């Protein structure tokens, strides 16, 4: 797993035996994992989401019924001061909401990662007992004297139980760290910092918590046993939330890998992988705004062929970038990039006019492209125009679409977390999911 700002990378390296805690922290016990109630994390997340909505509504109410009325009806210096205080109060609510969305991300991450791990643990215990082994109160698997069960079965059961306890511990440690940071952010008064940094870290961590629930580092036989024991809803959740990490597991069935790659003319896994690995790589940023350029690079690196004219050259209605000199100033001005490569509005139209289709938000998949269309006056562009693009890199089981983008660089940002603030600042948005498909 390669993530530029990987929060758990160090933890992924070590696979200590269960009797040697790897992190200087208290291991999640066998008993506590079996008795875990991850659904309660999810219910708590629901209420934090409601709190965030209340805060956003309060901010809107203060802007509309407070600031606007005071500005209109009290035009002297004191009225201006009162209006400024009202704006500050509204932003205080938005700052709180932005951070609360981070709490939502971590709690859903706990629910959606610990749930499958607990089910895996139950399945491993059941497997051990069906083979006649004993599983003690600490999760140790032993064969009774005279057991005729194959030794591999004992090793497999033991590996699955250790994997579950190790994963649960890593997730618990990371969730603790994130929640402590979100608590400390109570003193932050900067709305943009709350949304961009505090919430941004949490939304990325939500995806990483789910990745931690995978048996990364295990041998193919253990991975295959883990996958075969997963209920269908857990398999589907991992495919949408952490497709690259899942794809890279040795022992994952080939048909699952082919499904993850897709058949749209580009490899969806490689599009997501490229986007995540290059989220903070500024080398390609030669324009003032590089969102569509970033999407084009991700799809191109995933195998989507450029659309050229009949003579193999670039043309206005195609999708390509020509030979690049490496001199950013010149490359940005030499007309080698088609509008569909660099302009989000033109790019959306190009994909829809050339084999692609618009997908309902609920059907978004990693490797799709997400666009923001201005749905009301007051935004950065006229109503109806598209002004931003990004690559969908994860869809977590709570239905939140996570995306990766440039200008500004964001990795696995949360749509549910960011959109409310975007709409307060920029006006209503229509989120459009496009699934490109090569028809040329």
């Amino acid at each position, binding site marked *: 797993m390669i993530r530029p700002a990987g929060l758990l990378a160090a933890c992924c390296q070590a696979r200590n035996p269960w009797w040697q805690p790897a992190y200087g922290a208290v291991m999640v016990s066998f008993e506590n994992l079996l008795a875990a109630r991850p659904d309660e994390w999810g219910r708590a997340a629901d209420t934090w989401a409601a709190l965030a909505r209340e805060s956003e509504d309060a901010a809107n109410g203060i802007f509309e019924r*407070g600031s606007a009325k*005071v500005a209109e009806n009290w035009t002297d210096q004191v009225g201006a001061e009162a209006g400024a*205080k009202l704006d500050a109060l509204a932003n205080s609510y938005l700052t709180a909401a932005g951070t609360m969305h981070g709490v939502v991300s971590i709690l859903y991450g706990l629910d959606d990662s610990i749930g499958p791990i607990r089910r895996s643990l139950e399945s491993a215990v059941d497997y051990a007992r069906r083979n006649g082994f004993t599983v003690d109160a600490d999760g140790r698997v032993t064969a009774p004297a005279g057991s005729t069960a194959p030794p591999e079965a004992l090793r497999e059961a033991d590996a699955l139980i250790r994997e579950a306890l190790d994963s649960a511990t890593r997730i618990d440690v990371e969730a603790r760290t994130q929640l*402590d940071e979100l608590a400390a952010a109570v003193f932050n008064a900067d709305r943009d910092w709350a949304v961009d940094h505090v919430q941004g870290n949490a939304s990325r961590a939500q995806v990483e918590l789910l990745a931690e629930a995978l048996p990364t580092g295990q041998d193919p036989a253990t991975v295959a046993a883990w996958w075969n024991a997963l209920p269908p809803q857990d398999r589907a959740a991992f495919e949408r939330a952490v497709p690259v990490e899942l794809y890279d597991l040795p022992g994952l069935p080939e048909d699952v890998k082919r499904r993850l790659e897709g058949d749209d003319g580009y490899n969806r896994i490689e599009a997501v992988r490229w986007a995540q690995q290059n989220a903070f790589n500024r080398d390609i940023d030669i324009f003032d705004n590089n969102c569509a350029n970033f999407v084009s690079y991700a799809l191109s690196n995933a195998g989507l062929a450029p659309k050229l004219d009949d003579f193999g050259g670039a043309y206005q209605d195609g999708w390509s970038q020509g030979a690049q000199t490496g001199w950013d100033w010149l490359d940005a001005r030499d007309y080698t990039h088609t509008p569909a490569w660099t302009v989000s509005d033109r790019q959306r139209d190009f994909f829809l006019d050339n084999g692609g289709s618009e997908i309902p938000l609920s059907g978004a998949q990693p490797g799709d492209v997400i666009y923001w269309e201005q749905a009301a006056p007051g935004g950065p562009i006229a109503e109806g125009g598209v002004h931003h693009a990004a690559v969908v890199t994860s869809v977590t089981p709570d239905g939140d679409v996570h995306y990766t983008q440039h200008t500004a660089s964001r990795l696995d940002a949360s749509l549910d977390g960011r959109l409310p603030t975007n709409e307060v600042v920029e006006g209503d948005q229509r989120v459009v999911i496009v699934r490109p498909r090569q028809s040329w």
Partner: protein
Amino acid sequence: MRPEQVATAGDDLRTLADEAKQKLASLFHLSDVAAQANPGWLAAASLSNCRTVWEQRMRETVDSTATLGEALTVSAGDAANADAEGADRLTTVLDTFGT
């Protein structure tokens, strides 16, 4: 100043604060339920702490909302009688207002 309009803005803020205050307690409560349902987890203790500090923060923000609403209403009333005096009183309130 149009005192009636400003007073309405103040009333709206106080109503908003009253409604928010009632919702806060019930919404934060389920975090404690989640923590208690998962004893022994590090995340449980951290969630309880997160709930405590954010509940306090939101109570203070809601109180500030009510205070500012009250200041607008009172000052609008004063301004209807003596505009300058009302403005002075609001300025004093705004100077000590912590948002």
